[in-house]
């Protein structure tokens, strides 16, 4: 019993020691290495602005980022539309405070390997039926939720019925690589990732091309837990929001890539919530 008390005491001590560190995570929408450099810099920036220690906790899955937030293991996170909505429901008081300027009108691109002969069009490409298709991560908004929504809308069937084979590559960079190599004929990914990779010269446009872009929808956001005010002070949410909106170092913003951050709130993501309910990811 004494040992148990000592253990509990030790655990409490550990908690107290860590109390002044703000931890945040981000959905792993790209390879962990890239995220670790990007968010390492963000942590330094926020630490300077807020005057407390800020630490980035890398995770490997979308669900782990949601869980870490729910469990107060992290107090803030860079979420996608879907993961954001999931935590807004699960953690009362959590609020979206900022989003990228581009996140109000986010899009997914459908891309195809050149051997399919599919060309870019403004109409939904019905010819993708019976081909092989890869989403990104199962928990991704632009790599899974919205593409699946439009596929269901146009084919009136679940993706697994529509396509010969359906895969989940894990993240956007891999979706691009898999379609470019021909492992999958068609795929859907985050348009920002596509544009950045094209700009960086990582895309062989003779092998893979965009064939359709989805209508716009709201996506990524910074969300904080409501109870941070108890730990870091009453105006902490406003200060954090300010710090994010004031972020103007070019290489920092470009690593996201966003041109700047603008204010956000939970209600902006209502369309995402409705879609998730419609597909059955969020139950009603």
């Amino acid at each position, binding site marked *: 019993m004494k040992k148990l008390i000592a253990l509990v005491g030790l655990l409490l001590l550990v908690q107290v020691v860590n109390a002044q560190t703000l931890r945040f995570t981000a959905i792993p929408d790209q390879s962990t290495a890239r995220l670790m450099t990007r968010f390492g810099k963000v942590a330094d920036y926020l630490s300077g602005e807020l005057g407390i220690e800020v630490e980035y906790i890398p995770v490997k899955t979308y669900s782990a980022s949601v869980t870490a937030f729910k*469990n107060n293991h992290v107090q803030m996170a860079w979420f996608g539309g879907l993961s954001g909505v999931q935590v807004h429901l699960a953690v009362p008081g959590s609020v979206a405070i900022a989003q990228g300027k581009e996140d109000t009108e986010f899009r997914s691109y459908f891309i195809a390997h050149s051997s399919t002969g599919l060309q870019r069009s403004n109409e939904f490409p019905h010819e993708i039926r019976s081909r092989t298709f890869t989403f990104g991560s199962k*928990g991704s908004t632009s790599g899974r939720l919205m593409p699946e929504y439009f596929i269901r809308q146009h084919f009136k069937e679940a993706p697994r019925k529509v396509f010969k084979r359906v895969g989940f590559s894990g993240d956007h960079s891999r979706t691009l690589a898999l379609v470019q190599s021909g492992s999958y004929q068609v795929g859907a990914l985050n348009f920002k990732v596509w544009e950045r990779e094209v700009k960086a010269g990582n895309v062989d446009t003779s092998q893979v091309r965009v064939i359709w872009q989805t209508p716009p929808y709201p996506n990524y956001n910074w969300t904080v837990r409501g109870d941070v005010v108890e730990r870091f002070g009453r105006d902490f949410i406003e200060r954090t929001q300010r710090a994010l909106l004031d972020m103007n170092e070019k290489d920092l913003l470009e690593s996201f890539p966003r041109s700047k951050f603008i204010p956000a709130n939970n209600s902006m993501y209502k369309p995402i919530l409705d879609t998730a309910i419609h597909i059955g990811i969020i139950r009603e």
Partner: protein
Amino acid sequence: MVLGAVTPNLMVLYDFRHAILSTVTFAFCGISLGICLGTVFAFLFRYNVVRLFCAFIRAIHEIFWAFILLPVVGLNPICGILAIGIPYSGIFGKVYAEIIQEANQRPLQGLPAKTNRISKILYGVLPVIYEDIKNYTSYRFESALRSSAVLGFIGLPTLGFHLEIAFREGMYSEVSALLYGFYLIIASLRFWVKPRFVIGYLAGSIILISKEISLSLENALRFFTHEILPWPMRKNGILDGTNELSFEFQELWEWAAGLFATDGLEGLWQTTVLTQIVLATTGILTLLSFPAISHHFIRTRLWRQLGHLILIVCRTTPEYILAYVFVQLLGPSMLPAIIAITLHNFAILSFLTGGNANLLKLRADAPRKRINCYLYEVLPRVYSQFQAFLFYRWEVMMRESAILGLLGIYTLGFFVDSSISDAQMDKAMFLIILTACLNMGIDSISQLVRKRLKVSIKLTTAC
């Protein structure tokens, strides 16, 4: 990739020293927990409840345990330690109990009549079984290291974490360095893991990780009393905001039946198909390959040693990592999974069967021609042992088949992973329990088959 394999960037091992350290500490703490609980289970093993409980906890793969534990304890060392410790305690419980049962009874009978229970165990049982227990446990430590490394793939800070990054980024020199580092740890085990050092290592491990632990009772409670309960029970409470639970048998039944009919059935089917394919391919490959390490067939020592080396590499690389590599190479389908599970298991079986073959003394008039010698002399004599080994691995193959669903094959792991990423823990739990039931079913069939084959195998070498 080949270039990367021959140009390992060994410098990264220094950068990843924390990952290497946590791989070892997780394995140490996990297996210690497994030994403690397993010993208790072993002495209570005559009770059916304990027996069933052990079967159940070991039927769930370490990665599934990590999935279940992640929301309860958070992303910290405790998650990794419990994920290893819980299933291993089930395994130890069973194996220790069997070792005790098969132990020589004579020392026990030699003790004075009034000897109390504890003395009986200390003087009559432990000394007899110590050697077997030690061998088996140290073998298991090796697999605990494998489990620990693989847990990195789902986000714990072990070797797998960096291995996955290195693969993703195509940094194959780092990949090979990490893998070689891992082989080195396993190969050097017998030099630094000795019974007298274990306590010291364990204490060191606990001190190391205790810095990073934080637990919250609230999270655990919420998880067990809410999140894993079937949706129909929580639905009304969530919709009207009270979070109260309701119980409606009809709805609950429909929920379970619906889940079983969709994800459950397909997952079960695909898992079973994959398991049976690898059971067959492993069997065939083993029969073809075991002569490679047998002196009846390969007379040059050097070649036999080469054969051994290949088997050791295949056996030491965790299935999950093999499968991950083959998915990158061949794209997601059942093929990578088949190759990975087959390679890992055939290496173990071939080693055991080849070892058995080496024990045979052939008669002087045995056929000279190797093919005849194989077919008429060696194979008939090792075959029933081989079968017993193969069936012993059956449930292990099934556990792996299910877990490889995480890589995109539609086995049960795929549907568990989908439910978790949709934040529907109740569905995930239902499917994990279904997986466990399939595993327990296969385990009991395998036991029946082995009983009918009437071959007992020495456990310390077989698993």
